[in-house]
């Protein structure tokens, strides 16, 4: 199925370390857990992993909060061609380069940037709006990058709900909030969860948005891994860090799965 070869080979990266620490070349390969030991004992890594998990949590929460109503409106309140066009418009921004998009966000968010100028143009008093190089900028950039996943997967579930079910509930006297909570939300759950996973999982390892938008506070577990690959070329350690990340993500998904299964059944 998906990617049979890549992942096991990468696991090997972390464990089978060439004797002199280089990832390539005609060198002796030796089995070692030293990379994992180093990765697990360094407090810096734990700090950054926790920070990345928190970041991914908040990005996921924002994506769900913003994405669910959007998917609901698209699936249940808009009909015909308009819906078709909107469906496509949601994903179209992502047919562009992520780095270019992040640089564009920088132009929007920085002091004296697009947002600052726009707000000052309509605000009666002077506002100094510089969101650049902050947690806020990171979250905005990441939510933007991943929101369409939640919108589209949730849309797919919502759109499949049979109108007659909702009509029936309504005719029995249920009010909208109750229908939403007891009927629509549970039926939308598979899509919502799929979307949340597609957001949470990659955001934990994200490095580009944090690096370029987060500035001084933008050091994450993802940038740490990137450094091992790009700056020092300690690929075995980079691979070990990646697999610790993967393990943590899988543990979180496994821990959540009973709740998720209950929600989707």
């Amino acid at each position, binding site marked *: 199925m998906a*990617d049979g070869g890549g*992942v096991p080979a990468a696991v090997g990266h972390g464990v089978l370390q060439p004797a002199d620490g280089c990832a390539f070349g005609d060198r002796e390969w030796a089995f070692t857990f030293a990379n994992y030991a180093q990765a697990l004992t360094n407090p810096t890594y734990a700090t950054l992993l926790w920070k990345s998990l928190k970041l991914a949590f908040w990005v996921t929460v924002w994506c769900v909060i913003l994405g669910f109503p959007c998917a609901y409106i698209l699936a249940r309140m808009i009909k015909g061609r308009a819906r078709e066009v909107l469906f496509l418009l949601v994903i179209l*921004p992502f047919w562009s380069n992520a*780095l270019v998009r992040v640089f564009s966000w920088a132009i929007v968010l920085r002091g004296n940037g697009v947002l600052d100028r726009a707000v000052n143009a309509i605000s009666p008093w002077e506002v100094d709006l510089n969101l650049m190089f902050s947690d806020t900028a990171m979250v905005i950039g990441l939510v933007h990058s991943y929101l369409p996943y939640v919108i*589209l997967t949730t849309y*797919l*579930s919502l759109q499949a709900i049979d109108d007659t079910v909702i009509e029936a509930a309504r005719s029995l006297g249920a009010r909208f909030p109750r229908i939403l909570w007891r009927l629509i939300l549970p039926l939308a759950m*598979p899509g919502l969860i799929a979307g949340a996973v597609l957001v949470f*999982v990659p955001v934990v390892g994200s490095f580009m948005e944090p690096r370029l938008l987060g500035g001084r506070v933008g050091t994450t577990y993802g940038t740490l891994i990137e450094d091992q690959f790009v700056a020092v070329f300690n690929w075995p350690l980079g691979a070990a860090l990646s697999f610790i990340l993967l393990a943590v993500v899988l543990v979180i998904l496994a821990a959540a799965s009973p709740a998720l299964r209950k929600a989707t059944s």
Partner: protein
Amino acid sequence: MIRHAFARAYLGLILIFLYAPIVVMAVMSLNASEFYALPFRFSTEWYERLFTNDEILAAAWRSVWIAIVVAVIATCLGTMATLALWRHEFPGKRLLQALLFPPIAVPWLITGTAMLIFFFGVGIGRGTPAVILGHVALALPYVIVTVFARMQSFDRALEEAARSLGAQPLTVARKVILPHAAPGIIAGALFAFAVSFDQFVVSYFLAEPGDSTLPVLIYSAIRKGFTPEINAVSTLIILVSMAVMVLAARYAKFGGTR
């Protein structure tokens, strides 16, 4: 009706959010400043330079056709895999489903190097076939997760009904299952295109020198940096995609019918 007006306004705000950087990207392609500096001064310089820059044009074209090929392959394979996962119980199914997530979670740097080693190991080596295979592997989970989310809402009674009326399995697939899955498949294909089109690391590791895709060109310009020519080519691609999509929306229904 107030509810509808409110809903439309909300949708509008989300679209503004999604398109803010895209609009900025397009505007900056027409800004004279190489450093994206404000205030805006109109200039078509970047487009003029783009049209004489064979390297960027060739890379853009290569990115587009690779993304189309990847979207087609990943969507076909992904849809078939999803239907298998969704319909049948078989040993190891849980494991296979769990294995869908690592390709998303593992940083692409690792996947890229692992693929390089793997492709050399099995004798495929570097080159466009390897790039396409690598992209398909990365795009597949997105297709499967998306189509699977859609199939969760399928009423199996429909399939039973069709079958009890004497429909052959293929007819059932064509007339009952695929129409229901269609919006998910379309969404999956769009994701697959996006994943491939923006994929840097795998292309970087697996492409032959001189066969750069657009993301490779952009990222390897890290030391010198890129110019607004990149904005210009990105803007053109978005505009063409938009035109194609609007046409597609005119002649096909894929948002799903109720």
